């Protein structure tokens, strides 16, 4: 039987009968979850989310319930909830669907999460390049407020919470949660050092803050509606629930697909329609541009020493981690045999060089250097030593920076070279213009 989608979050979004209006949402049983939640104790809701196994959909895949449990509830300061809708990881376009097509699902998820965490003011940080999304959200919040689903004394429960839409000013790094918080405070989005600035303790305005991705918060609605037992039946242990994968690149049917875990083969062939005619898959970048590439011809070995092929990779958090990469923001970019891997790398590194916030030395300088080398390699100026230089230099970035973005240069560079070294080397060999280093030129003179 061919593998198919399992639509929960996107159940109605693309259907003809559905619109982003509150009536549409209510017709489909919307806001029942919120009513149910308001009748419960916040700590029980938090426990339920923890037990549901829900993991963050924004990048790191951290347990949502554990994140909530780390919030400093003794400080006496207000607790803030921020929905991260800065979606700007290359190849990622799922949050946009949820916001544009089903904004009330997000609002309901946020209100439940806010109630569960004693939050009185929640924010949606939406990237600047989504002006329509911001309008839709503003309107939806108005609608919900008119129906007393947001605002004072919600549905007579005595609980009050408002949602503010905050538009970003246009930078990828605003998606990193502490950069986002700085940006919300009206500053440059320089990610903060952790310690001491863990959002759960010292977040927005130095108050305890929860930052969750759009898709994560939407899932909270279904955890409450279905109950923990039913919810955990979706997916597999440690990877509960569905995930929306954004598929782009060299594949027949690019798009976004909400699925339960399945194998790469099932996903790429059954769901995405396989390679373009006459082409062969070369590999995929599984979780947004910063993740390590997975080669199609590669043999993988998991922790227990069991080996498996590209086709057998299970498309979920743990399956992709077992193959040595990360599911990240679930932006899956497919490369086939028509792709020049060095050009692919040049393209990716150009993005991270442009988006490095510039705060810390290794990412700031390393990302631009990488961009310059790869660009030169693609325009006939490759030198044999460039490959080792790239590999070694990129190793000086990731893990040594303020925020995880350092890895966005290290991982692509190192994984592309490890897996496609021969392509890099042949580029270097084919160098015709014979660019020489300054030192070499000096020696000649």
């Amino acid at each position, binding site marked *: 039987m061919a593998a198919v989608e399992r639509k929960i979050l996107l159940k109605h979004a693309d259907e003809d009968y559905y619109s982003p209006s509150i009536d549409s949402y209510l017709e489909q049983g919307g806001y029942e979850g919120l009513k149910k939640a308001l009748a419960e104790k916040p700590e029980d809701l938090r426990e339920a989310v923890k037990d549901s196994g829900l993991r963050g959909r924004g990048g790191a895949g951290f347990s949502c319930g554990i994140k909530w449990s780390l919030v400093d509830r003794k400080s006496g300061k207000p607790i803030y909830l921020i929905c991260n809708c800065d979606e700007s990881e290359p190849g990622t376009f799922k949050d946009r669907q949820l916001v544009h097509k089903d904004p009330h699902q997000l609002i309901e998820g946020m209100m439940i999460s806010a109630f569960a965490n004693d939050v009185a003011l929640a924010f949606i940080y939406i990237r600047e390049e989504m002006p329509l999304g911001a309008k839709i959200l503003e309107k939806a919040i108005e609608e919900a407020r008119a129906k007393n689903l947001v605002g004072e004394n919600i549905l007579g429960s005595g609980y009050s919470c408002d949602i503010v839409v905050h538009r970003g000013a246009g930078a990828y790094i605003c998606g990193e949660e502490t950069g986002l918080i700085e940006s919300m405070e009206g500053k440059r989005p320089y990610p903060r*050092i952790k310690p001491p600035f863990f959002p759960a303790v010292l977040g927005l305005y130095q108050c305890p803050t929860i930052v969750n991705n759009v898709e994560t918060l939407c899932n909270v609605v279904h955890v409450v509606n279905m109950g923990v037992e039913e919810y955990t039946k979706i997916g597999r242990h440690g990877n509960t629930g569905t995930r929306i994968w954004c598929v782009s690149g060299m594949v027949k049917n690019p798009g976004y697909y909400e699925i339960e875990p399945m194998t790469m083969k099932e996903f790429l062939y059954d769901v995405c329609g396989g390679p373009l005619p006459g082409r062969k898959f070369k590999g995929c970048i599984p979780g947004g541009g910063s993740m390590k590439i997975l080669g199609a011809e590669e043999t993988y070995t998991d922790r227990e020493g069991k080996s498996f092929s590209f086709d057998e990779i299970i498309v979920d958090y743990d399956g992709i981690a077992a193959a040595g990469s990360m599911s990240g923001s679930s932006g899956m970019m497919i490369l086939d045999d028509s792709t020049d891997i060095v050009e692919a790398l040049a393209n990716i590194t150009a993005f991270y060089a442009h988006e*490095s916030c510039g705060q810390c*030395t290794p990412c700031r300088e390393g990302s631009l250097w990488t961009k310059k080398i790869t660009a030169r390699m693609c325009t006939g100026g490759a030198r044999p030593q460039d490959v080792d230089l790239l590999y070694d230099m990129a190793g*000086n970035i990731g893990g040594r920076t303020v925020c995880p973005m350092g890895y966005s240069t290290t991982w692509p560079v190192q994984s592309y070279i490890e897996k496609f070294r021969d392509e890099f080397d042949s580029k270097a060999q084919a160098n015709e213009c014979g660019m020489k*280093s*300054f030192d070499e030129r000096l020696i000649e003179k």
Partner: protein
Amino acid sequence: MSEDQKDDGLISVFVDDKEVRCKPGTNLVDLVASVGEEIPHYCYHPKLSVSGNCRMCLIELGMPGRDRNTGEPMLNEDGTPKIMFFPNPAIACGTKAGPGMHIRTKSEMVKRCREGVMEFLLINHPLDCPICDQAGECKLQEFSTDYGKGYSRFVEQKVVKPKRTVLGPRVMLDDERCVLCSRCIRFSKEVANDDVLGFVDRGSYSTLTCYPGKQLENNYSLNTVDICPVGALTSRDFRFKMRVWFLKETPSICTESSVGVNTLVSSREGKIYRITPRRNDEVNDTWMSDSGRVIYKEVEDENRLSSDSSSGDLAQIHKYLESEKIAYVGSGSSSVEELYLYNRLSRTTRSVANYLVAHTQEGDELLISNDANPNTRGALSVGLIESLPEDQLSDLGSKIDAGDVDTLVAYNEDLTAAGITAEQLAKVDVIYFGTNSNATSEAAAVVIPTLTVFEKDGTFINQQFRLQKFLQAIPGLSGVADDLETFSQLLNHVEPDTGDLSSVQAVWAELSSEISLFEGQSFAALSPEGVALDGSTFKHLPFCEGKTLHYEPAAETVEAEA
């Protein structure tokens, strides 16, 4: 761990396996410095918030392991705690010492981290050391030598950024040299309370700049030049004047106000090139005002009294001092030693009154106090005056008018600026000691030139009753005697068996025995940071100082003012 904490409140941290005892929470950069080792760093500054952005201070960090299930400490085979090192390096500047913590500052990983950061910092750096003022005191140079690779792998075009940007009246910026450590930004915001600097653009194109329509013009702007670890910010006064390795540095005290900012005077071959702050956590931390930095220019002031401009001699003065009616006016910018000898002179002659001229100003609540005299408390301590000085010498004026004064001795004060009229000066015989000519010296019968603070040794007592010493940075003006020398000789004229008091050491031998406040002190033993004296006998006086960096006016004074 908690047990040994009880003893002295200290904990054990292991730096490269060597045990170091420290207060919990000590910053690791400071901790390692305290045992004479170095963690290289650019952005960290002990007096600013931690930004953790340069990544030069990366170290390996480990904690005693605990079993996940039982919570029990994990042990090695030999029973010692098993240390679990984090897989990624940590920034020392953003890490506080905790009990049992282990750090590695010399491991292969740490070495690679430093090499990496140094390489990244240098690839877009213009490498223009030969024309850079910072050369010789540049952290980029120092750390390249100590921790860098020694060669470049970079063959691309460098990033081009603005050169010679005027940030303000005293500070010049070369953006290509900037390592984006943000120290200058944090200083402006956190210390100078003048948030004018920031970065624009991003990534490697990030550029330091002033906000539109703003200038870096506050009176502390030059501190950014001091703390800039590289040659990006330079002083427009000092730029291109002198190579720093030629400079001799002499510890001194700023005479701008009674704060007594600790300074270093940099000179070469008898010429001063700059003044920079000297760290004193009790007084000025690591800062000083811009205005205090140009005081050295008084050495070459056009009104400076030289040996040519002296008139009369000590024998002549002696004659005038035989008068029955002498008034003495001293200065709050003279040293404790000078004021002591001056006072002694007044006591051995027939003084009708001693005065000091107050110089008040509006302080800035940071490092400039309301009292522009650096040594008002010195004058009180040696007994030259008993109450606080006034800025108008009206009492002296009336005494002159009443014919109660016929010899008037002025030391480094222009009496006409203190309300004494030319007519009044004409009624008495004026003896003037001072560095500069003015209406008083013009009217004087005898003029003896003296030295500036840069040309002699001495001490001041600041607003906190902290006794602080300054040392001679440059030779005195040719032919001009040290003030102490002058007064010592004069005293011996008046009282032939006074003995030699021409050196600070000799004066201190007397001060420490004569004045209880100074008991046990000596000039030689006085530490560069100075010593806090017990000024409680003067606490009833309504001193004019308000709050400044490390000073709160005493409650009594505040009441007295109110």
